[in-house]
């Protein structure tokens, strides 16, 4: 059997060409995670990019300027109740101090880069010093997401400049930017521009699912030897964040998310403030065509349903889908073996479903087995990866 799976349904979704913005929500909700110290008081004024919470050298910045209204427990993060600081937006985006932009980002040292990345929350992983390969993932995890594709399309010059600078500062011998070969606009765009950066190799990967997942992308991009020598893996969103941090020395308080689904008339990629409520984003960004929708985050294949719109946008949210749920009844397994043959992690989902104690740690939770199953078995339910169930 053919082991490559393309998701044909994703081809039919037509996205708005430009990145839209929703950067003026009335309120911003910042989750108070365990161990974080509150640096502001209720009723006080906060500047944009002012530190709100801190723990060791991790800091949480305010995405807007305005008044701190206090704490609330009405909001949720991934369906879990969470205490949040509520900031009323004054829509002035007042900054305490404006930092001038740096002219050349390749003049930073390794340590300076690391300090800035940590200080301004540019990425949620540590850079590996001494790694010989730098791999940049320019492919969206879910075939219905377009965030990475839009970032490359809109900021290709900045992305290439940052990758080149980062590779030379980190001393990487090989730098690979992997993109989807079906992403025609970006393929042409990058082929035209990459000549200026001879150290960056453009890797065109087939349009198969789940090629955008870290382990699968690395398997298809570099050799096992290169993996052994150490790899710095980053996404184009990470690179865009690093660019902003290095160039402007400003913390990451905004992010791009895909808003789509079969209940959305005009799927688009929207730039939003981290901490915005999903209800606000949906209300202000898209036209809904079918009221019987469910809110799904991070993809139609691997994503999960939110129980309420009172969830907030965090750096981990890549997409919001307003979609109907497939309610077809599960049939008895017909032993077709598709789940086993196509599993990108080489697992046997049928066996894992039947044996609760079996090791599930290798599962990447891509949802491919559930998508493929002709008996409509929801393997996602049995393979875990969701603590609230």
């Amino acid at each position: 059997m053919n082991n490559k799976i393309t998701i044909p349904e994703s081809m039919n979704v037509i996205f708005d060409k430009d990145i839209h913005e929703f950067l003026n929500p009335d309120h911003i909700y910042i989750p108070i995670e365990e161990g974080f110290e509150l640096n502001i008081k209720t009723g006080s004024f906060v500047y944009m990019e002012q530190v709100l919470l801190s723990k060791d050298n991790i800091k949480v910045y305010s995405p807007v300027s305005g008044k701190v209204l206090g704490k609330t427990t009405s909001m949720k993060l991934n369906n879990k109740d969470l205490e949040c600081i509520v900031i009323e937006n004054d829509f002035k985006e007042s900054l305490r101090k404006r930092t001038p932009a740096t002219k050349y980002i390749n003049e930073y040292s390794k340590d300076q880069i690391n300090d800035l990345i940590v200080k301004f929350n540019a990425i949620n992983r540590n850079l590996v010093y001494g790694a010989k390969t730098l791999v940049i993932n320019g492919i969206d995890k879910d075939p219905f997401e377009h965030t990475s594709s839009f970032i490359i399309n809109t900021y290709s010059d900045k992305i290439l400049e940052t990758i080149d600078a980062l590779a030379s500062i980190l001393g990487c011998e090989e730098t690979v930017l992997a993109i989807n070969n079906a992403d025609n606009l970006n393929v042409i765009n990058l082929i035209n521009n990459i000549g200026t950066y001879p150290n960056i190799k453009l890797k065109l990967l087939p349009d198969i699912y789940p090629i955008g997942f870290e382990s699968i992308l690395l398997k298809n991009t570099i050799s096992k030897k290169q993996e052994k020598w150490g790899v710095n893996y980053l996404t184009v969103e990470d690179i865009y964040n690093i660019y902003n941090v290095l160039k402007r020395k400003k913390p990451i308080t905004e992010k791009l998310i895909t808003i789509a689904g079969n209940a959305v008339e005009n799927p688009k990629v929207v730039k939003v403030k981290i901490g915005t409520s999903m209800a606000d984003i949906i209300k202000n960004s898209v036209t809904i065509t079918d009221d019987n929708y469910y809110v799904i985050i991070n993809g139609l294949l691997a994503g999960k349903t939110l129980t309420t719109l009172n969830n907030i946008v965090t750096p981990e949210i890549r997409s919001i889908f307003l979609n109907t749920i497939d309610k077809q009844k599960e049939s008895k397994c017909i032993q077709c073996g598709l789940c086993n043959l196509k599993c990108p992690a080489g697992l046997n989902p049928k066996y894992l479903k039947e044996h609760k104690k079996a090791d599930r740690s290798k599962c990447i939770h891509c949802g491919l087995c559930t998508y493929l199953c002709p008996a409509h078995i929801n393997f996602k339910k049995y393979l875990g990866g969701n603590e609230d169930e």
Partner: protein
Amino acid sequence: MNNVYIRSKKSIYHISLIRILLLIPMVLYGIYKNGIFLFINKYTNVYGLFRPFIFILGGAFIGAIVNIFYEYVINKKNNKNASLKDVLFSSFHIEYGIILGCLTSINTNMLVFFLTLVIILLLSKFMKNRVNIICVCFIIIYAIQSLLLNGFDYMNIYESNKLFEYNILDYIIGKNVGGIASTNILINLLVFILLSVTNNTKTSIGVLSMITSFLLFSLYCMIANINIGNVYFQYGYIFIFTFVATDYVTSSYTKLGMRIYGILIGALTFGFYFINPILAPIIAVLITSFLNNLIDRANKLFKK
């Protein structure tokens, strides 16, 4: 909450429908060979003309009725809003009925054939799909026909009236003696390729069972100086490897498991040939289907 938002268009309905549609060329040849040809040459009457059609369509009809009865009457709690399409294709029973119609002899007693089908197909609904139902039905029909009635004979009235010396071409285009619609190897192989290309069969089981048995039979025929056609291409072995051995529900599903399963069927077919050539592949598939879980577990051991 881990709900499902999007699914591949491939469902049990699609698999079943494609397999049934691809059986049609085989069925048409069977109707010609055991009905139209005999009628044109005045070997049979109008009833004889429709006899192969009745077996095959009747098999499909019983498969459908069993599904409807089980889903709407016995399992009605779980099927309140199920559509007729979902119920009809809730399992592969329609396909099983057609395959049995293709496999059986034109001389089979109709009452025995249909009663066996009704009872076994219905009983299978309550079992855990461990055993290949087609094999069970066929063995029962064969046993009743051979032991209680006038014997199990594959020859139609035309074939029993003449003496034939078949060559390889005759076997390939299905002129030889065999089940109602299981003799044409050319159509059979084309259908198998189409099933493989459209991912609607367990290709490795079919291919490996054919190759293993062919190699063993070739070796035997070489040593015993026998025409391989008279041994290997008789009794619809290729048809059984294509449609019965690859039954989704009762065969192995892991990559290595399917390979072992296919090889085992081929080898057992060769072994049982010396006991009963007609039942050899059927018993091989039946025994292997009993072991399918074990074979899939063995796959895990190999990985370790």
